[in-house]
């Protein structure tokens, strides 16, 4: 990775205009960068920073109305603008290839994975069938997939997310490219899988001497893989340098904020709680989902297999687990969106396990939920005011009281009163999530269940929402169940953490104790995967 390596890709003063009428005039402003042979350059930025546009511009895959307004792209000294379409096509996939964020949509669901890689080879002129087949099997083995001979005939839906991403990487490696452009290749994956894919990419890069342009929003990923880092904000260059420089001694405020956002350190250390009375109690909670198979068969999955939980007044309980561990089902059972198949559930000491929906409705004000997707959780056809008044009206307040409450909660989450008359599409993701929180608060709940409520947001916005939740908790004496896949977020917010695996709570305890001395092997594995982030955590004051 020395500076003596020849420059592979050189971008000078790249500027891409956006169609007029948008909130920004340019996707990229005068961006210059270069990638040397064998090095990994990480381009970091939040959504809307123009980082994906950069990748598309390099491969000449910009969506229709956008084009390069200014600037030159050089590949080994040759101006890419001079290449005609066939020459560009030969370059794509052969010398420069790409790995996308969502492995499922990058693969054709109707072709076996072997055939898809085979087609890439064929498209670039490998005629001999046996030679192609041998290469495909070699590639599948190389990216760490078990039993490549059998996987050759597997279809994408038969593979896990991580395995699919490995197939996409194998396809990208078909011709041992000089440069691999990876656009958020790990952000759709679990932490454990994320780590394996990063290790794989790092290994391939070392062995093949391949250069990588790695696009991400996550500084933890940067830490794991980057040689050099370039930070973008809204299409503008912020700063660049070696990974050690940028991570260890960031020069710009924006970079410092981004790095601090991945830190687990809360702004206010959580006070130790006096043991309060329990506001939410679940005992041996069970939930099954069954699906019919053929004529007589039935497959039953146990989403919850006997979960015991307790939430004390003013406490935050973090529920951590990978996707499929049953944590979302648990959240839905706790607010009684789903009725459990066994066990019992108490709200404020009252048994609500089998209370009919009609009788439960009057008590729904006590336990509220904050949803994951800020875009799907608001009704697109109702004004914000109407949506905030829904709860109070359903709980029997007068329209005047409800309107008053709507104004009050909007103030609580830090939005101006003018928002009341507007529709959801006029707000950003972070603002929508604030509205979602306000809607839940409008019925004056004592318990909030937050299901992955920050995972769809940018790192800086995540921090703001977490701070808002902490602040609201202090002011309103809320108890929170915080469901997340992200151990860092859970560690920051929770008094206690429960770790879930396959529908069971495998370990639960006070945050510091659980993170310091994990007992269960699964907890240890989760912690190990997050250890990848540890240097970042130590680097921040």
């Amino acid at each position: 990775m020395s500076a003596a390596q020849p420059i592979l890709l050189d971008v000078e003063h790249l500027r891409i205009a956006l169609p007029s009428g948008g909130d920004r005039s340019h996707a990229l402003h005068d961006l210059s960068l270069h990638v040397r042979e064998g090095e990994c350059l990480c381009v970091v930025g939040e959504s809307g920073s123009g980082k994906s546009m950069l990748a598309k511009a390099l491969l000449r895959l910009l969506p229709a109305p956008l084009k390069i307004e200014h600037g030159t792209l050089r590949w080994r000294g040759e101006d890419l603008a001079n290449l005609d379409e066939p020459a560009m096509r030969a370059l794509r996939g052969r010398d420069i290839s790409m790995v996308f964020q969502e492995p499922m949509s990058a693969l054709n669901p109707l072709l076996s994975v072997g055939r898809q890689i085979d087609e890439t080879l064929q498209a670039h002129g490998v005629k001999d069938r046996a030679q192609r087949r041998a290469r495909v099997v070699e590639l599948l083995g190389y990216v760490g997939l078990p039993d490549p001979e059998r996987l050759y005939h597997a279809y994408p839906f038969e593979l896990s997310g991580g395995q699919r991403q490995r197939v996409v990487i194998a396809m990208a490696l078909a011709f041992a490219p000089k440069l691999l452009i990876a656009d958020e290749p790990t952000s759709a994956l679990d932490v454990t899988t994320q780590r394996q894919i990063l290790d794989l990419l790092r290994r391939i890069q070392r062995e093949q001497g391949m250069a990588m342009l790695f696009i991400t929003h996550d500084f933890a990923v940067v830490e794991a893989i980057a040689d050099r880092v370039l930070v973008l904000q809204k299409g503008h260059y912020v700063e660049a340098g070696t990974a050690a420089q940028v991570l260890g001694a960031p020069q710009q405020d924006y970079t410092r904020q981004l790095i601090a956002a991945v830190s687990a350190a809360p702004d206010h250390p959580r006070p130790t709680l006096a043991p309060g009375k329990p506001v939410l109690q679940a005992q041996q909670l069970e939930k099954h989902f069954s699906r019919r198979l053929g004529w007589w068969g039935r497959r039953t999955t146990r989403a919850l297999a006997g979960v015991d939980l307790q939430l004390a007044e003013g406490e935050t309980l973090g529920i951590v687990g990978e996707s499929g561990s049953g944590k979302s089902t648990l959240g839905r059972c706790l607010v009684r969106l789903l009725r459990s198949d066994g066990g019992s559930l108490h709200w404020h000491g009252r048994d609500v396990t089998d209370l009919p929906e009609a009788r439960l409705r009057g008590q729904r004000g006590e336990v509220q939920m904050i949803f994951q997707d800020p875009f799907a959780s608001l009704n697109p056809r109702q004004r914000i005011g109407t949506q905030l008044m829904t709860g109070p009206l359903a709980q029997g307040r007068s329209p005047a009281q409800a309107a008053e409450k709507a104004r009050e909660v909007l103030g609580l989450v830090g939005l101006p009163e003018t928002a009341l008359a507007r529709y959801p599409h006029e707000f950003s993701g972070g603002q929508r999530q604030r509205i979602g929180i306000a809607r839940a608060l409008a019925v004056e709940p004592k318990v909030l269940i937050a299901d992955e409520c920050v995972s769809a947001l940018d790192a800086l916005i995540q921090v703001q929402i977490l701070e808002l939740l902490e602040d609201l908790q202090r002011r309103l004496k809320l108890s929170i169940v915080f469901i997340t896949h992200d151990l860092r977020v859970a560690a920051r917010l929770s008094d206690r953490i429960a770790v879930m695996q396959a529908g069971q709570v495998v370990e639960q305890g006070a945050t510091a104790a659980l993170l310091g001395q994990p007992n269960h092997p699964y907890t240890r594995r989760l912690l190990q995967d997050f250890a990848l982030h540890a240097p970042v955590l130590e680097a921040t004051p």
Partner: protein
Amino acid sequence: MRDSSVWQRFIGQPAALIGALFLLLLGLLAVTAPWLCQGSPWEMNTTPMLAPFTQAGHWLGSDMLGRDLATGLLYGARVSLSVGVLATLATLLTGLLVGALAGYFGGWLDAVLMRVAEFFQIIPQLVLAVILVAVLEPSLGTIVLAIALVAWPAVARLVRSEFLSLRQREFVQAARVLGQAPLAIVFRQILPNALAPLLVTLSFVMATAILTEAALAFLGLGDPDAMSWGYMINASRGMLRDAWWMSLMPGLAILFCVLAVNRVGEGLRIAFEPARRPGDST
């Protein structure tokens, strides 16, 4: 804000706008027909088989009994449009009720209602309508009933599928968690979001209803007291060689009316389409 942009996208399409204006004009003419024309459409008040544009006062000519064709066409529009509108309304009510019940509550109710819908869907629609009208005696009411009875399953299925997917959306679940009652959830949260595809389907239901009414009248199963386009074609089909215009005029009337309804439906579909996208997460 979004509503106004749907409206702008609609009037931005020439075909849809012309279709809408044509229907409006036709509706206006149909309503004012008794004042525009002298006498009833059945009245034999001129020379039989008068060619168009040959006699002032009977611009479109007359049929073999000397009945004025222009008057017949205007009164025919009354029948076609009222059958179209009433049958669409009846279809909407039935389809909405069945689809909403099946989609929102699911379970055995869903299974039973959908089997009933399938029963109506596997019978050829026109044959069922013909039998119903023949058995019940032709009148405006029975024709509307017959058309609605064969058209509702399509609407019910659409409403059901919209309800099934919207019920899972987070904002509907949020309303449940807030304690909103099921009926309020259906009318405040789900229906407004299902309105776009529903309106589009209804416009096509209306086009089919107008065609079915014309077909029934052509087969002699129209309301015997009402002059309709289908009846006019039926009455004059024997004279196609001698007096082609007697069949052509009502035929063109049916063509343009159905075409206009279709264009409006297509225009609505295009106008709603982009609006549905920003609502989905990307």
